[in-house]
């Protein structure tokens, strides 16, 4: 099994394989399902970008952000501003401006992330949490500022000109492809990042700042870098949101969005990209599942608030009983299956950290 051991050794090969498989699976799904499911697929993909970035920040670098919605806001508005005066001509294959807009969105939110990271590198624990919470409330208010509202559209927001689809592809599928392509690229890059020197530096700083700096790492630089990476991923998600929703306004990025992203990364399993994928599926489908199961319409008082409530409950329960999230649960189940009749205490090992460290998880 020479090829398997090569996979084991080379992160690049492994990540390429994962990316190709993910791309094929996503492509297959989008070919099989209809318009509505394709728009949901687009949501899953863009949520994955945001949650993957957040989970790397919290789970790997040990810095918390309660305000990642702010970076989605930056990305979304950047794309909207770039496409504001641009109408897409009928021959879409010649027009790649939206790709440029997405790249700029990533760059701008990475820059904002660098600023936030510079502040974050000086702050710890509740102070950092509070500042990022204030960021999530404060930043989306900018468009309503009277001197900026002309440029940023005020309360009504901005309409985004969405690029035409390819000639023989229907529109929702085209959008799903754009989002999935970005998600696969994000997966590929982040996977390589967390298995590289940089990723190990993140973890070293997370586990013990003093030891990390004694080992020659610049703690502040590592922390800022983590924020930049995470904000870039969130900015990409925001840009994709603008492209798929066709409109951005201050209310598109409420505090609940930031909290939902955090909840998704915790419930999925902090620090793991597969956990981010579970979280993205959950955050996208929960509202419609909640409706289907309860039989309540989304306009009734209870129905409208059911997803938020379930999400909050799931977050609390997962924190109390399942601190390693869905990913932790699955890996402990597979370990149990692999070990067969191994004694209980060995399989319970993964769960024994329940009262303990959120950061204490294995790389699987």
């Amino acid at each position, binding site marked *: 099994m020479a090829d398997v051991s090569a996979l084991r050794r080379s992160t690049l090969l492994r990540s390429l394989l994962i990316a190709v498989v993910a791309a094929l699976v996503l492509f297959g799904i989008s070919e099989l399902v209809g318009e509505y499911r394709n728009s949901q697929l687009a949501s899953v993909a863009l949520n994955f970008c945001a949650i993957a970035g957040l989970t790397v920040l*919290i789970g790997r670098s040990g810095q*918390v952000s*309660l305000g990642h919605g702010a970076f989605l806001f930056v990305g979304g508005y950047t794309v909207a501003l770039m496409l504001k005066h641009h109408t897409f001509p009928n021959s879409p294959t010649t027009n790649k401006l939206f790709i440029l807009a997405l790249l700029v969105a990533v760059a701008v939110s990475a820059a904002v992330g660098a600023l936030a990271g510079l*502040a974050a590198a*000086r*702050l*710890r*624990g*509740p*102070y950092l*949490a*509070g*500042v990022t*919470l*204030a*960021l999530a*409330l*404060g*930043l989306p*208010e*900018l468009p*309503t*500022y*009277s*001197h900026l*509202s002309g440029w940023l559209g005020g309360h009504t927001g901005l309409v985004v000109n969405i690029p035409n689809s390819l000639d023989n592809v229907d529109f929702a599928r085209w959008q799903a492809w754009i989002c999935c392509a970005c998600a696969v690229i994000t997966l590929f890059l982040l996977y390589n990042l967390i298995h590289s020197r940089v990723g190990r530096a993140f973890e070293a700083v997370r586990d*013990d*700042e*003093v030891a990390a700096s004694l080992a020659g790492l610049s703690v502040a630089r590592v922390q800022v870098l983590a924020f930049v990476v995470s904000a870039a991923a969130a900015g990409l998600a925001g840009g994709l949101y603008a492209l798929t929703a066709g409109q951005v306004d201050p209310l598109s990025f*409420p*505090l*609940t969005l930031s*909290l*939902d992203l*955090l*909840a998704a990364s*915790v419930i999925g399993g902090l620090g793991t990209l597969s956990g981010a994928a579970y979280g993205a599926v959950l955050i996208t489908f929960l509202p419609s599942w909640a409706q289907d199961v309860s039989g309540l319409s989304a306009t009734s*008082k*209870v129905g*409208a*608030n*059911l*997803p*938020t*409530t*379930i*999400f*909050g*409950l*799931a*977050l*609390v329960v997962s*924190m*109390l009983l399942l*601190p390693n999230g869905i990913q932790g649960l699955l890996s402990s189940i597979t370990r149990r299956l692999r070990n067969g009749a191994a004694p209980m205490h060995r399989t319970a090992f993964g769960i024994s950290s329940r*009262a*303990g*460290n*959120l*950061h204490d998880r294995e790389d699987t």
Partner: protein
Amino acid sequence: MNFLNDVIYGAANGFIYAAVALALVLIWRSTRIVNFAQGGMVMVTTFVAWDLVVEHNQSYWVGLVVAMLAGLVLGGAVERILIRPVENGPPLNPVIVALGLLLVLEGGAGMIWGNNNNTFPAQFSLVYYHAGHQVILFNSDLLFVVISVVVIALLLYLLFQRTPIGLRMRAAAFNPEVARLLGVPVSRLLTLGWALAAVVGAVAGVLIAGIPGNYVSPNGFDGLLILGFTAAVIGGLDSPIGAVVGGLLLGIVLQVLDGYVSNDIDSMFVLLLLLAVLMVRPNGLFTRHQERRV
């Protein structure tokens, strides 16, 4: 005169931020946790008061007292059921549990009372005072706000400095291990601390809801948490007096900025203020420097 009015009106609002900050400080001192669900808890107790006063035509005082009782129960229950299991874990865990609770409270309140912006009537006159022909941005309702918060602060001071139970609470916060050895029922006192904080928050919620421009709605108190947090951080999270000073400063600065720059971007100002304070003193203005543990 404009400036003076801004200071007066801002300080009156600042008293409410001070009350929220006091609630946060109470919990921080005893458990080293910032209660990020405070805004949600304030929202629920204020909705309880709103339900009684507006929907069921009860008197303002009934609403206020029931809201305080609801806060007492809610605060105690939250500490016992949700916070206790994560109290001694890594510091991120209680933050996440509190945020989960916030989502549950916001969703739950929306289920019961809907997601509209509801107005809450002020109990006292909203007509501004006059000095000769000059309007002063102060009225009986704001006077009531100031008096209430001052009374709360004094009661808390007396409780902590002059009563045996306050002494025990301080001992439990200062060194839980030793306090327990000396017979102090530490865990019960932590619950009491959370309950008291929620009562203070309940009063703050009813007070701010009565000020025109504020609404009772499921996410209507998110901003109040950040205001209280900022006030507490200016004061240094550890100092009750700092919390009051921080609240007043914050109220005044925000009101002045509103007048001179814009009143559209209050949350942005709060963010910048919070950052400015923390960049100068990462642990708040009033705390002594604490070494990070190795």
